[in-house]
């Protein structure tokens, strides 16, 4: 159990940037270094971690922890992967809140903000490139944009509606195939 915690603590402490960067590291640790799971099991877990809510890195940790040691394992692994960043942020944030109005810090962030914008825009572009590729997905993407920006619908509402749209479409296409037969 301790090894579970320590391994995920190490992963959580050493991975910077997007959570997706953490996944191959977890894979390496779990499959190669410790042999807790096979390659196939790990691939399965990662696939499920992508579709369950929450960051994929945390989900992967949770799942591996469960497979290894039940509910307690999942809690331990999750705590391990979350704790380092939790502690680091705590250490930084009170300092940041104190200095955020100093001219130097303000200037630094003024320079950083356009880059942050670029990062978010790039994330959107990356995902769009992979997911928006036919009439249906273009329509959903466009509708989602309209709903959230113009109608000011809550993103949760947009997500729910888009899931529904996907379900309805699959039902309609399957129905169509059934009738064609």
């Amino acid at each position, binding site marked *: 159990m301790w090894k579970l915690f320590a391994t995920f603590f190490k992963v959580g402490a050493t991975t910077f940037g997007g959570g997706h960067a953490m996944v191959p590291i977890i894979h390496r640790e779990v499959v190669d270094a410790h042999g807790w799971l096979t390659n196939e099991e790990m691939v399965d877990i990662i696939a499920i971690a992508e579709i369950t809510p929450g960051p994929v890195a945390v989900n992967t940790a949770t799942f591996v922890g469960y497979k290894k040691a039940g509910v307690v394992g999942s809690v331990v692994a999750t705590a391990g992967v979350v704790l380092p960043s939790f502690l680091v942020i705590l250490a930084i944030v009170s300092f940041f809140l104190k200095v955020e109005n100093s001219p130097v810090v303000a200037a630094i962030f003024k*320079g950083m903000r356009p880059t942050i914008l670029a990062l978010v825009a790039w994330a959107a572009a990356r995902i769009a490139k992979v997911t928006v590729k036919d009439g249906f997905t273009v329509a959903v993407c466009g509708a989602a944009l309209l709903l959230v920006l113009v109608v000011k619908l809550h993103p949760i509402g947009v997500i729910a509606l888009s899931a529904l749209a996907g379900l309805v479409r699959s039902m309609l296409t399957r129905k169509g195939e059934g009738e064609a037969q």
Partner: protein
Amino acid sequence: MIFSLFGTFFLIGLFTFGGGYAMLPLIQKEVVVSHQWLTMTEFIDVVGIAEITPGPIAINTATFVGYKMAGVLGSAAATLGVVLPSLIVIVLIAAVFVKVRDNPYVEAAFSGMRPAVAALIASAAINILPSSVVDVKGAAIAVASFALLRFTKVSPILLLLLSGVLGALIY
């Protein structure tokens, strides 16, 4: 406040599909617009800090907001809130052996959700545009950064730190 932090981030954690960045539009709506716990500018800064610190960007943002609103207890509440939904869902799935992989209904729902997530993240970018690009220099930095991200393998963290240094120099 503690309860509100926990509840809000629980909701955010519950509906984040498709990667950590997908949490940003949700946090934007709940934390900046609805509860006004952060200004849009502060939100942008938090995202930046969350990007350069270890850990998933989504978790870091929760921790930060929680601390700002209610100290250590608040950060614990927010972080716990955002992590709990996925913990519960995954344990349920694993324990009950619910088949989610290659499940046609799940696939179908996600076929709709994925393009929507792209749109939502794009909307988050659009929403932070006025607060992040305030002058021509900023616009130049934004465009250059995007180009570098798009066409090179530059590390986002390096890019952020460089732009911070640039900011200190030109502002």
